[in-house]
């Protein structure tokens, strides 16, 4: 479960904020052209694709831009080249090739007809120049990715080919792992903020749409029927009717609730919309549509501005609600 209680400043802002991470290490299969290119990089060799018009392009495109046919011929090019254009990166962002200032540059490798975009490591922008000769600095640990070229560094004007010295033959690289790690500042809407702040006080605040007069919980930035924000605040009780449910019996990444468990729509008394929550203190096989339920809260000192202040809902023991009272909420 995610906790966002370490967000002291958020209560002073207009709306609630919390950090949100979106992180996945993507597994990319490569296909024949990129496979050959990455396999060669792992061997400290750079391959270019030969196009129908005879031009050699690095990185090799999978398909010829003119004929649209698959590129099939790859040839080694040099690991030395010339800077065609560049831009200084004074303030590198996360996961770029260097953590200190560097240049991104278009580097035309000797033997190629189109430039490769990559990093050039020099002490300062004044050390960069279009036309300068640069040489690949290979990464210490080969990974079979474009990052096997750690970056380029300045080479002498007379620097010449130092590539294609290695023989192919190591296991072919057929896939790469691409870590995409992003960080966001998540913010709730003003309406949601009132709801979440209410939760921190142990209260359940819904809001009424000024047009259709339906009571929404959580409140909405726009009533989904009328397109206007919900407004009038309504405090709702922490009990209601279970409208429908499923029994979750599948483990998934990030899951913290032991399976099987019941995920159910709970229609609080006085609300016009149900929300999903967890049902416990009852055998899953005994849960039924129409069952009356009430919230079980965490200990007060654990309350935050989160819906998980309610640990789960449990049966109240009241008689089940009549189907006709909730069937229009299915």
């Amino acid at each position, binding site marked *: 479960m995610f906790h966002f209680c370490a967000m002291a400043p958020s209560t002073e802002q*207009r709306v609630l904020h919390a950090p949100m991470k979106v992180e996945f290490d993507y597994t*990319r299969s490569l296909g024949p052209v990129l496979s050959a290119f990455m396999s060669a990089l792992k061997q400290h060799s750079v391959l270019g694709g030969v196009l129908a018009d005879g031009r050699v392009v690095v990185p090799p495109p999978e398909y010829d831009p003119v004929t649209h046919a698959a590129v099939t011929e790859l040839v080694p090019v040099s690991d030395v080249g010339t800077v065609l*254009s560049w*831009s200084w990166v004074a303030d590198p962002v996360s996961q770029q090739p260097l953590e200190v200032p560097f240049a991104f540059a*278009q580097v035309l490798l000797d033997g190629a007809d189109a430039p490769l975009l990559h990093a050039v490591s020099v002490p300062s*922008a004044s050390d960069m120049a279009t036309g300068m000769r640069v040489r690949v600095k290979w990464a210490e640990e080969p990974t079979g990715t474009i*990052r096997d070229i750690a970056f380029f560094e300045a080479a002498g004007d007379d620097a010449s080919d130092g590539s294609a010295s290695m023989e192919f033959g190591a296991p072919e690289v057929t896939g790469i792992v691409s870590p995409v790690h992003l960080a966001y500042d998540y913010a709730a809407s003003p309406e949601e903020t009132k709801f979440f702040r209410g939760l921190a006080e142990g209260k359940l605040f819904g809001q009424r749409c000024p047009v259709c007069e339906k009571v929404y919980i959580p409140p909405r930035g*726009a009533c989904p029927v009328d397109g206007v*924000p919900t407004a009038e605040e309504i405090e709702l009780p922490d009990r209601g009717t279970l409208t429908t449910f499923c029994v979750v019996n599948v483990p998934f990444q990030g899951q913290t609730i032991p399976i099987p468990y019941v995920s159910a729509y709970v229609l609080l008394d006085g609300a016009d919309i149900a929300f999903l929550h967890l049902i416990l203190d009852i055998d899953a096989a005994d849960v039924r549509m129409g069952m009356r339920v009430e919230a079980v809260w965490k200990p007060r000192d654990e309350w935050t501005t989160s819906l998980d202040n309610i640990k789960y809902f449990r049966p109240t023991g009241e008689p089940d609600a009549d189907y006709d009272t909730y069937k229009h909420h299915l």
Partner: protein
Amino acid sequence: MRDVAVVGFAQRQMKELDGSPTCLEILVPILADLYEQTGWTKSDIGFWCSGSSDYLAGRSFSFVSAVDAIGTLPPVMESHVEMDAAWAMYEAWIKIQTGEVDSALVYGFGKSSAGILRRILALQLDPYTAQPLWPDTVSLAGIQAREGLEKGLWDEAAMASVVARSMSDAASNEWAIRRGATSVDQVLAQPLYADPLRRWDCAPVSDGAAGIVIAAGDKALQARQRPAWISGFEHRIEPIALNARSLVTSTSTAAAGAAAGVDGVDLAELHAPFSHQELILRSALGLADDVRINPSGGALTANPMFSAGLNRIGEAAKAIWAGESDKALAHATSGPVLQQNMVVTMAASIKEDS
């Protein structure tokens, strides 16, 4: 083709929206503005289309909650593009051309400030050979700018004059984020930020949303006496790879402009997030020297992702409504360093051959 006009436009921009990435908070008043401008209600709209990005919001299906701003029970005929809303407007214009509907409301939104925009946009690049290096938007633009500078296609003063004119013109645009009377010397006095670019050469990170209403024939005339009739609507894309196209020209803009027809244009709103890109676009479109460029201040003064292109169309249409232009051009761009470009031309009068 049916005669279709822009009859409503509303926008909201800010440096940082202190609110949800669904942007409902700004979409609701935008739709209200559009209803007020046209005198219409939801039921007058035949088709809805929006543009936004999951990666800007950091979650899948980020566009889904935005339809709440419409209020979609009863259900509506609706679509979404993962593109600037200018392309949503294109889809809507096509829908009207099929004859199925007579009017459409399009909107775009995005909260760029939620993440590090220039880094997130690196995810647009080739996922095998480019993205793993995380080339950021500003660096790519810097490479493009330097190539033009060193080839003598433009100079620092030309770039600075774009900045100065944009910021000065934006002084009267209530939605501009970076604005105020600015001279070329003041621009050149700024330090380099990403050599060869100064911060002012780069559009400010902007949050925002915008909406446009378009309608055909008599339906358009119902809403506005002097609508902005669409006379050309074209877009083209180029390869993503920086080594597969010329960075200092824009063949896609040139092709779209030629197809849309730029003759007689007296005003152009160009979506150039970097100063030198305006110079590339002007050249690609072959705009005459007396064409007024970006009287709104343009993207250099506010560049809300996924609505900034639509804003250009709206600003150009506004100039026609106000009688400040008889034929205006709007341009929208998408993708790294001007990869994909759209040209819309609008005129105060319906062309006679239609």
